[in-house]
């Protein structure tokens, strides 16, 4: 754990002490090194699961894929931001990369935490750099609104979580996941316990986001710069899923009844957000709403608490993280050239940027869960688990899959196919950096297809 965390913290002096000529090169190379070192976590040496060097930070099959995803994403974010940040003064560029590196540090500590309170503190800490990125480097005046929604939705959900955790500490004497997984089931028989259950989970449901509390997500994703969108879509949403998976262990048997409304909301959200996607005119907004839909499926999978549900949830989280981040990078390449996110004005791009069309195609196929990509595996496991829980859910999940395919194809056909408007016939060609970025997003998805045991969680 420390062999990744210490280099990440040492990124801060790297950023501030590099000369301006070598700033981007050194930070990218160093973050790649950290990413490759993090791949060593994937080798599980102990049978119990927890790879712990001390009792404060550990990695187990649930958190390892998310940790590797986090470490993998930092070099990609730095690559993606290189172009639009270049025009700013050097110290501001350093500040930007510092914020990205600090997000990385907080998230490694969050996913690697064994004490739930440490996870909570890191969960909250990630809000600050994200807020700064959105409100300082976002593109329009609406970013202030977006930052407010983002901050206050999450904070309002997580204050009850703090109280719930303190109560848990009081009643069980410990907040360590290593211990709590073996503790006796708590006696949860009063109304107060029901509210405690809700308090434990609301923060993560808002973060995921669950359909009824998802308003912050389209705003935050659209107004954030590309690195902000990438980190939000790929990892920050998964904090919610991961937190829910950890907390559900000690929330039995209340979950059997209390989870009902949230499962229904999540599944309904899959359909509703899919339909909203079909009517979107802003490209980033479309990808943001598709994130809500996918995470709704994940929330459904976690709340039913079956092994396949958990496995499907974590596979879908990893696959969706990489896919959504790839789509945001592609949307950014289009935005940097045409200065517009409106789909009508930047269409028919296959004529101008043909190789980028290949990346668009693969990313959209991944989004609509094409076999044999891991997106399908995750979705299929969740759908099967839900069907086992209640056969009626197949109607909703089936319709949801259909609508997802619909809007993914709509996104591809509108942005790439068709005739190109005259004012974008001469766009600057794709940079190698952009191709590298897309390759680094899509190759892991394809490789994971070949060895999915890496992300199966506890089902080995």
């Amino acid at each position, binding site marked *: 754990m420390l062999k990744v965390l210490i280099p990440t913290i040492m990124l801060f002096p790297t950023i501030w002490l590099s000369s301006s000529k070598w700033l981007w090169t050194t930070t990218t190379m160093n973050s790649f090194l950290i990413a490759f070192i993090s791949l060593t976590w994937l080798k599980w040496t102990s049978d119990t699961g927890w790879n712990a060097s001390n009792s404060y930070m550990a990695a187990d099959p649930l958190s390892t894929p998310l940790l590797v995803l986090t470490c993998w994403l930092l070099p990609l974010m730095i690559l993606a931001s290189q172009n639009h940040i270049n025009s700013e003064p050097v110290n501001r560029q350093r500040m930007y990369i510092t914020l990205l590196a600090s997000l990385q540090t907080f998230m490694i500590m969050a996913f690697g935490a064994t004490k739930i309170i440490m996870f909570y503190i890191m969960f909250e800490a990630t809000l600050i750099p994200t807020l700064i990125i959105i409100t300082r480097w976002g*593109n*329009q*005046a609406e970013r202030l609104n977006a930052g407010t929604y983002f901050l206050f939705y999450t904070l309002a959900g997580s204050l009850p979580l703090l109280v719930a955790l303190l109560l848990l500490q009081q009643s069980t004497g410990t907040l360590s996941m290593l211990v709590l997984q073996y503790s006796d089931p708590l006696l949860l028989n009063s109304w107060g316990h029901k509210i405690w259950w809700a308090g434990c989970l609301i923060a993560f449901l808002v973060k995921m986001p669950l359909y009824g509390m998802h308003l912050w997500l389209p705003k935050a994703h659209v107004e954030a710069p590309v690195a902000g969108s990438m980190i939000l879509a790929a990892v920050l949403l998964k904090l919610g899923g991961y937190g829910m998976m950890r907390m559900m262990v000690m929330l039995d048997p209340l979950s059997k009844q209390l989870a009902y409304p949230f499962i229904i909301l999540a599944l309904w959200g899959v359909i509703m957000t899919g339909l909203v996607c079909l*009517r979107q*005119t802003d490209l980033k907004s479309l990808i943001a709403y598709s994130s809500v839909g996918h995470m709704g499926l994940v929330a459904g999978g976690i709340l039913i608490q079956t092994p396949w549900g958990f496995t499907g949830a974590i596979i879908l989280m990893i696959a969706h993280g990489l896919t959504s981040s790839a789509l945001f990078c592609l949307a950014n390449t289009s935005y940097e050239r*045409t*200065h*517009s996110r*409106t789909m*009508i*004005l*930047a269409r*028919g791009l296959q004529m101008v940027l043909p190789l980028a069309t290949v990346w668009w195609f693969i990313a959209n196929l991944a989004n609509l869960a094409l076999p044999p990509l891991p997106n399908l595996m995750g979705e299929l496991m969740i759908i099967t688990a839900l069907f086992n829980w209640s056969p009626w859910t197949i109607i909703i999940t089936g319709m949801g899959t259909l609508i997802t395919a619909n809007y993914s194809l709509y996104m591809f056909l509108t942005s790439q196919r068709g*005739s*190109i*408007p*005259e*004012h*974008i*016939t*001469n766009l*600057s060609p794709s940079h190698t950096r952009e191709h590298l970025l897309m390759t680094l997003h899509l190759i892991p998805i394809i490789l994971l297809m070949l060895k999915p045991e890496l992300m199966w969680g506890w089902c080995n």
Partner: protein
Amino acid sequence: MWRRLFATVPAFRAQKAPCRSFKSSRRSDKDVFEEVEDQFRAFRKKAVKAMPGSDWSPFELTPGLPPERADVVIIGGGVVGWSIAYWIKRKERTRGALRVVVVEKDPTYSQASTVLSCGGIRQQFSLKENILLSLESADFLRNINKHLWVTNEDPVDLQFNHSGYLFLASEKSAHVMEENYSTQRYAGAKVVLLSPSQLKERFPWMNTEGVALASLGLENEGWFDPWSLLNAFRRKALSMGVYQCFGEVTGFRYSTQIAEVAEGDFVDFRRIKCVNVRMPNSLEYQPVECPVVVNAAGANSGKIAAMLGIGLGPEESVSGIPFPVEPRKRFAYVVHCPDGPGLDTPFLIDYSGVYLRREGLGGNYIAGMSPEETEEPDISNLDVDHEFFQEKVWHHLAHRIPAFEKLKVSSAWAGFYDYNTFDQNGILGLHPLVANMYFATGFSGHGLQQSPAVGRAIAELILDRGYKTIDLSAFGIKRIIKKKPILERNIV
């Protein structure tokens, strides 16, 4: 006993002692409940300012600033600019898909060509495209309330007088008029040719000496109120969600791609990233980031094009060809002649260049004349040259209509043509050197009458990739670069 007591103090009774009331506030006519309600109302008004729905913000933003990002920025808030804004909003398939911003320098429209125009519309051109543009626009104007009516507002009244245009030709130019006539009939205009005797029969007040042929428009020709059309477009576009900004475009932020041509020369291709809009009476400017810019700035289009380097390159190259639109001043004189021709007066255009139309029902007429190329008036201001009327216009007017020998000039004004010095026809479409600026300017005096159709054409270019209803590729900028003018064969 009481009476005796009171009888001893008659003086006091006559004079009432000054008495102060117990209330400290002024006496009001309202009762207690009304006063309480007043106080509640005042409180609610104050509270509204603090509520989330209000537009109070802790940052002091300059009012009237355009948004930081837009999809289409239309430079110029004249009739062409607002027509384009309306048509773009009409053609977007999802509501709110495109953010359109119209930037206008002068909210009073004091120097705008639109409102200073005589407002005529005709189909008697020699170019098929011009005829089709005017025909479509006339159809739009006749059904204007189907297009531009806003619910709950008054219907649009353009005061469209369908009196037609009457062109007069001398011996020398009669053959041109006949050829134009066949082009016009083929394109669908309702025009008729008149011989001098038919002319005299129809319009007995005219002196037909020197006239060999005349052509009269029977339908879809006449004049209307340009201010009403501008406001109709503006009101409808604003109701559809177009942003209006009063400010001046002072520059652009653009990216340049340098390409090497076959001969080894280097050409700069520019792509506009932001439009810098400066607020009125201030140094503050807002860069509006946008993918598409439309230059509908009328007489100032040449200045806007020069901001992008068009015309500033080496002389032999494409970038050395300046954008050929510049302002030209034209005068309109309002004359009063009580014995003048009556209601059936068409918009008369004589072969000497003088034109005349009826204005209102009180014996007033608007007259004017195109000056010679060498005698163009000074464009630094909009002052009227009354000598021009006395020396040039009146003479021809009185010759053609004898009743006009006795008239009185009641007023006059001057306006700018967005004059296309190359071939006096509109310029529509993209410039080869600037990737994302559409031009819709250079109409040289017939912009107003073609504005509805031009707006639709530009919207088709932006949203549908090409012209769908009328093919206006002949009006592209290519003709200027290839130096192949398409001139109107007017008889004037």
